[in-house]
């Protein structure tokens, strides 16, 4: 099966060296003549998939799991929606978060076309500014949909609750949950069911990052703070400008530092949707890791998270690339297949097609990679996907490290500042040769720690597929 698929892929276009050995990326044909700039993907029963376009149509696809994608069929389920970003199937309906509301679409007469467009919640403001996007999750364990509301023009807050995260209950009530949001690109949950979103570089965001939506937290951009009065909530923090995240965190316990910074220009430029791998190894050994889509670079990054002293942090690694448009939605099916969608209208992307719907499957071959990078009291521990060569992996000279942070400021973005050069002074390989403990002198709390492990070889002599990782060290474990 994989051989057949591989040759199809190779015919379809030039492959990036290496990726096709491990992951098979295939474009799924979309309905002829339709402009399907994908903003949402929902997995339906019986291996059907619904996609929603930025133009506001929902199409349902059969055959997207089959080996022969030329037999995929489509049926239009709904139209006239306002840029939906976030969609799922539940209780026989499609739920989606569109710009003005959370909606429930039901096909009452079972003819394959939605009849009822029920408004579940529309209690936030929109004023006609194109940037007032809304991104929504699938239901959490209580059935709530988490919605992040982009600022007006990404720099103002002209409509109610812009810059806030809301939970929408199954009854349609709206619970203000976090403040401080700027310009989200996607939202989802990790393996523990905690909600995260991606926020894009800009005002108060020195770099794009993955952020933890801990209820009650302030995510760092004070533009929408004023709306706390609408629900008699305490005023969110007003940070000093300019400053540093570590400095302001000490003043404001509610200020949530980014869980994982995705260094601007190095990891990507516009992070978007996310999926947590809960397939238990059907897509490789990345159990419970997060896959974060990237619009500008047309990539998927991989993130391992850990909780230290009550805060999430972790490392981001480059993972999959070469997608045909700027990625936005991403969903992983139970069989491990990763479905992604893309658009580059209005925001350019490396992939040059105006839109795309693709799937990625694991070939069964695992690349030699850093599986996880976690913080220790005196350095970092690396776990590899295969046994390492103890000689190279145990040599501190096989590793390089640089660290920096960003100015926390109202201006757009930030240079990398406060550079430090932590030094790897020891590298201790575990007895089973799958882990290496790095002793690192000169780490800086709050900084991004950029690891380069180019010198490490596997037991069979190959180098790392992706030798770089970027760890955000919010907390240092004891």
């Amino acid at each position: 099966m994989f051989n057949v698929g591989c040759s199809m892929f190779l015919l379809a276009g030039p492959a990036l060296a290496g990726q096709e050995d491990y992951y098979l990326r295939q474009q799924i044909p979309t309905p002829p003549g339709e402009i399907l700039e994908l903003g949402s993907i929902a997995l339906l029963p019986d291996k059907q998939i619904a996609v929603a376009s930025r133009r506001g149509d929902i199409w349902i696809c059969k055959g997207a799991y089959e080996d022969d994608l030329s037999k995929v069929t489509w049926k239009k389920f709904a139209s006239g929606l306002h840029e939906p970003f976030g969609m799922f199937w539940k209780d026989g309906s499609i739920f989606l978060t569109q710009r003005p509301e959370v909606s429930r679409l039901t096909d009452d007469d079972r003819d394959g076309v939605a009849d009822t467009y029920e408004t579940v919640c529309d209690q936030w403001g929109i004023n006609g500014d194109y940037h007032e996007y809304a991104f929504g999750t699938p239901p959490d364990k209580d059935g709530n949909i988490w919605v992040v509301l982009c600022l007006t023009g990404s720099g103002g807050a002209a409509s109610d609750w812009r810059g806030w995260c809301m939970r929408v209950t199954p009854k349609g009530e709206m619970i203000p949950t976090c403040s401080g949001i700027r310009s989200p690109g996607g939202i989802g949950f990790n393996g523990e069911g905690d909600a995260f979103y991606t926020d894009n570089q800009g005002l108060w965001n020195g770099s794009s990052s993955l952020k933890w939506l801990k209820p009650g937290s302030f995510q760092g951009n004070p533009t929408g703070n004023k709306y706390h009065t609408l629900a008699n909530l305490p005023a969110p923090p007003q940070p000093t400008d300019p400053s540093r995240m570590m400095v302001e965190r000490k003043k404001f316990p509610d200020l949530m530092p980014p869980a994982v910074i995705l260094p601007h220009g190095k990891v990507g430029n516009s992070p978007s949707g996310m999926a947590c791998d809960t397939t238990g190894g059907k897509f490789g050994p990345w159990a419970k890791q997060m896959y974060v889509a990237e619009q500008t670079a047309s990539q998927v990054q991989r993130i391992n998270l850990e909780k230290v002293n009550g805060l999430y942090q972790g490392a981001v690694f480059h993972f999959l690339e070469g997608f045909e448009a700027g990625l936005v939605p991403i969903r992983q099916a139970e069989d491990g297949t990763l479905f992604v969608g893309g658009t580059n209208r209005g925001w350019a992307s490396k992939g040059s097609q105006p839109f795309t719907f693709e799937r990625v499957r694991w070939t069964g071959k695992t690349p030699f990679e850093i599986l996880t990078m976690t913080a220790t009291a005196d350095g970092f521990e690396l776990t590899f996907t295969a046994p390492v060569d103890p000689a190279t992996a145990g040599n501190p000279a096989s590793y390089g490290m640089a660290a920096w942070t960003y100015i926390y400021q109202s201006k757009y973005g930030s240079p990398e500042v406060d550079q430090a050069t932590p030094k790897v002074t020891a590298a201790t390989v575990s007895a089973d040769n799958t882990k290496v403990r790095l002793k690192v002198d000169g780490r800086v709390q709050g900084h991004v720690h950029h690891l380069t492990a180019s010198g490490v070889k596997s037991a069979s002599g190959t180098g790392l597929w992706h030798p770089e990782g970027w760890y955000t060290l919010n907390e240092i474990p004891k």
Partner: protein
Amino acid sequence: MSRFLLPLLASLPLAASAQDGGQLFATYCAACHGANGEGAMNGQFPPLSGSPWPLGNPDRAIKIVLHGLQGPVEVNGRTWNLEMPPQGAALPDEHIAAILTYVRSSWGNKADAVTPDRVKSIRAALANRSESWKAPEILKLHPLELAPPLSDLISYVYDGTWKNPPDFTTLKPVATEEEHKGLISLKKVGKKDHFGVVWEGGLSLPADGDYEFLFDADDGGRLILDGKTLAEVKGIGPIDSRAVQVSEKSTKGPHKLRVEYYEFEGQEEIRVAWRKKGAPGWTWLSDAKSGGSAKKWPDIPIEATAGRTAIYRNFIKGTTARGIGFGFPGGVNLAWSADHLQPELIWTGKFMDGGHHWTDRGQGAEPPAGENVVALSSTETMPKDARFKGYKLDPKGNPTFATTIGSQRLLDSWKPGTLQGKPALVRTLTLVGQGNPLSLTLSDKTPVTLVSGSDYTLGSTTLLHLDAGKIETQGSSAILKLTPGQPVTVTYGWK
């Protein structure tokens, strides 16, 4: 760079290495401006290659990089309306200088290097500026140093009475002029009727590839590139009636362009433009462009298909941000506000054009595409506790909007029909649940006047017919009293 060098380099202090402008451009700029400087995705974003914007006095480009640029910007005759985010807070002086030096010396661009000191002094001088630049503001400070669109352009004027293109090579011009602006223009010819003009000049194309040329004339003429006639407009007639668009493979660099033109009598105009094949906009070589009728967006008509009503939920001009448009078969249309829970616009003819919101990022509100637009209301007239519950479509896609008001439920159904033999909108209002009657505002923007019985006029173009009840006027509002369990059907027709 080989991989084993990386650990070594990583330990070098960042500032010690010279900044690589090409690498920085690839990281921070190429996503939109394209690795080749031609604007990403076949020119969906503005080019830097061959653009006058980054050339000449570097202060213009430094300021745009520092503070960003918002709103319409014209480059080589094409207009983009996007946002360039400010980079001043993200990029240090050395990076900005390296990037601009790279841009000013790449892809055929030729201009001096930019020094970090120059960036530093501009940054210091504008330390208090936080807003992005707009094109007119920065062009006032730093006008473009424009290369003429056609180099060494010469015009030859002829007298004669032609209704078809003559062979100008056999004729003797009555005047010959150098055109330093490099633009094809009739403004200085000084003649109204019975004349001809030939222009000859150099056209520089940015790359090898497929190009498209646009030629239109009132009355006629020819477009000739490197001796080959690409387009011809014959006979006599107005502009926009016989425009010719042709594709032509061409090469990077200079080409000889010859344009021949004749005017018989009446109006006169000539339009010449080129673009890379498939690019969304034209680069104009004439001062006349597809002027008054120039559309910013392509036409993407949205309409009822196969007897099913079309829906358009987006920003519709004349209603609120939560407007929902319905285009019914037969050319009758509705915009219903899910903010105000009421119909706000009705109109006839075409429904909506998606070109505005479905191209680029979708800024602004789009007016109805059709005619006879009637504004019904634009204010909140429903009780404070009214809540939108969504809509249900019948098998033909016709909506019933649901609104709760306390324990009552208002159903507002719309479908196409006829009134006095013409297409009409048929609206049935049903109040469900025990309670008081509801005073419903049918219109507070356009006056309703009783004609006779249950027939009314709505403004000057529209008719209203009720199957039950009556409309009362309170101030400028036309009110219908709706009793629970007693539906009323209101038909909106056009005279």
